C-alpha cells in the first residue's frame, strides 16, 4: 500500500469486512444527504409552482416550473443581469488586484534585501490581526471625499494596494520555498529584480497564485458588507445586494422566486468548488483559512 508523502489529507485505505464497510458507507451517505438537504431543498424549491412549495418536504417538485426564475430575474426595477455583471466586474478586478498587489509585496519581503525590510514585515503581520471595523469609518470618509461612494472603486482599488495582508503572508511562505539559487543565478546573468519576479517567481508560484485568486474571487463575490456600505444606487448593486433588496421587497410572499435568484447567485462559487475542489481544500489544510 503506497502512501503518497505529499498528500496531507487522505489516510491510507483500510480493509474492512464487507458488512462493516457497507454499514459505514450507509451512515456516511445518510449524513451527507442531511448536510446537503437544505441546499437541495432550495434547488428543488426554485423549480416548483409557486403555490406548491409549502405542501410537502419532498425534494421532487410535482411539475417543473421555471416561473420562479422568470419572476425573480426581473423582480426589481433593474434585472439580475445587471447585478451579475456588476458582481463579475468587481470580483474579477479585485482578484487581479489582490494577486498583483500582494505578490509584489510578497516578492519584496521574501526575496529582496533592503533597509527596513524586517520592520515593515512585522507591521504587515500586525495588520493581519486588526479587525476591519477600525478602519471602516475613516476609509468611508476618505472615499466619500474622493467622490467614490456609489461606485465600485472602493471595493476594487484597495486590493491593488495589497490591503489583504493574509494573501501576502500566504505568498511569502510559498516564495520562501523556491530555491534561492535560481534567482542568484539570474542576478549573475544580469537579470533585473523585475525580470526575476516576472520570469522566475510568478511562473513557479502558480499553485499559490491560483489559491489566492480563487479565494479572492469567492470572498469578493460573497461580500455583502462592503457593497452594502458603498453602493446605494440600484444600478450599481452586486448580486448579494440585489438579493437582499429582493428579500425586502417580496418578504415571504414569493419563496420560489427568491430561491431561484439565490441559486443563481451561488453558481459561480459552486463552479469554483467543482473545478478547483482539491486546490480549495489543500489551501485550507495548509494555511488554516477560516472558510
Amino acid at each position, binding site marked *: 500500500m503506497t502512501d503518497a508523502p505529499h498528500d496531507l489529507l487522505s489516510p491510507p485505505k483500510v480493509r474492512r469486512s464487507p458488512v462493516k464497510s457497507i454499514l459505514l458507507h450507509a451512515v456516511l451517505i445518510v449524513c451527507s444527504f442531511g*448536510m446537503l438537504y437544505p441546499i437541495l431543498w432550495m434547488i428543488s424549491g426554485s423549480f416548483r409552482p409557486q403555490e406548491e412549495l409549502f405542501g410537502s418536504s419532498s425534494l421532487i417538485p410535482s411539475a417543473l416550473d421555471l416561473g420562479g426564475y422568470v419572476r425573480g430575474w426581473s423582480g426589481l426595477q433593474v434585472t439580475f443581469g445587471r447585478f451579475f455583471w456588476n458582481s463579475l466586474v468587481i470580483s474579477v478586478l479585485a482578484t487581479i488586484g489582490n494577486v498583483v498587489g500582494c505578490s509584489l509585496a510578497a516578492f519584496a519581503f521574501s526575496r529582496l534585501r533592503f533597509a527596513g525590510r524586517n520592520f515593515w514585515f512585522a507591521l504587515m503581520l500586525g495588520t493581519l490581526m486588526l479587525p476591519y471595523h*477600525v478602519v471602516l469609518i475613516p476609509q468611508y470618509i476618505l472615499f466619500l471625499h474622493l467622490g467614490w461612494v456609489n461606485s465600485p472603486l472602493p471595493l476594487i482599488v*484597495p486590493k491593488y494596494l495589497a490591503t489583504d495582508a493574509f494573501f501576502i503572508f500566504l505568498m511569502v511562505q510559498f516564495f520562501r520555498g523556491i530555491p534561492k539559487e535560481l534567482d542568484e543565478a539570474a542576478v549573475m546573468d544580469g537579470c533585473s529584480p523585475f525580470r526575476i519576479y516576472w520570469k522566475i517567481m510568478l511562473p513557479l508560484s502558480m499553485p499559490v497564485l491560483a489559491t489566492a485568486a480563487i479565494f479572492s474571487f469567492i470572498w469578493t463575490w460573497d461580500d455583502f458588507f462592503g457593497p452594502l456600505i458603498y453602493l446605494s444606487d440600484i444600478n450599481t448593486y452586486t448580486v448579494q445586494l440585489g438579493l437582499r433588496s429582493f428579500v425586502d421587497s417580496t418578504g*415571504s410572499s414569493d419563496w420560489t422566486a427568491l430561491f431561484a435568484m439565490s441559486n443563481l447567485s451561488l453558481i459561480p462559487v459552486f463552479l469554483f468548488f467543482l473545478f478547483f475542489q482539491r486546490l480549495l481544500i489543500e489551501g485550507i489544510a495548509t494555511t488554516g483559512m477560516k472558510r
Partner: protein
Amino acid sequence: MASQTETMHRGSRTAALRGQSAFRRMLDRNAAGYVFLLPWLLGFFGLTLGPALASLYLSFTNYDLLQSPDWVGAANYVRILTDDPKFGAAMRVTFTYVILSVPLKLAFALAVAMAFNRGIKGLTLYRAIFYLPSLLGSSVAIAVLWRQLFASDGLINMALWQAFGFEGPSWISNPDYALYTLVLLSIWQFGSPMIIFLAGLRQIPKDMYEAAEMDGAGKARQFFRITLPLLTPVIFFNSVIQTIEAFKAFTPAFIISEGTGGPINSTLFYTLYLYQEAFGFFRMGYASALAWILVVIISLFTAFSFLGARYWVHYDD
C-alpha cells in the same frame, strides 16, 4: 614590466569600480525593494494606519459627516459602557453566539474528521460534501434559505407537522429562538475547521497508535492520551480563528432580521449594531468608539488564549 604596470593599473581601476558598483548595487537594491513595496506602503499608510488613527481620534468626538468633528473627550466610551442598553444587548447576543457556536462547531468538525481519518473509500467525495456548506455559507443566498427554513410556514415546521402533528412557531421572528437559528447555521458550516483537523490528524505518527495497541490501550484511552494531546495545537488554532470570526459575524443576522437586529434586539450582533450607528444614524464618532471596544475585546480574548495555551497546548519540542 609594462604589462605588469598595466595589469596593476587595471586592477586598481576594477577595485575602484567594484567599490563604486557595490555602493550603487546597495542603492539599487534598496530602491528595488521599495519599488516593489510601494503599493503595499501606500495601502498601509493610506488605508490602514491612517484610518486606524483617524478612527481612534473620531471615537473621542461627535461626528455626523456634515459638520466637522466635535471633541467630547471620553463621553462616547462612558455612554457605551454605562448607559447604552443596546450595547448591553449586542454584547449578550454576541457572546451567546460565540460561546454556543464555536465549541459546538469545533466538536462536530473534530468528530467528523476523526470518522474520516479511518481510511474510507471515497473520502474525497464525502469530504467535499461536508465542506460545501462552509464554502457557501456566508452568502446572502444561504441566509435567505435559512429565513425560509425557520419561517412559520418553513421547511422545519412543515416537517414537524408531518412527523409529530406539532405546530411550530415562527422561529426567526420569536426573540427566544431567533439567535439559535443563527447558531445552527454557524454549526452547519464546520467544513473548514474539519479540514484543518483532518490535516492535523494525519500528522500524528501511526506507530504511536500501534505501540499503544500493543500495550493494550483501548480506543478511548488512545483518544485521550494520544489524539487529543497531539491535536491541541490545531484545536487551539481553530478555536482562536473561529472565535474571532464569530465576533465579526454580520451577514446572516442582517438578512434574517432585515437589518434591524430584531425581534427585540435578539439578533443584534455587535457588528450589526456598529453598522446601524455608523450608517443608519451617521453617528460616526460613537461607532468608532464601538469599533475600538471590539478591538479591545478581540485583543483581550486573543491575549488570554495565548496565555492560557501554555497550560493545555502540547507543543512537540
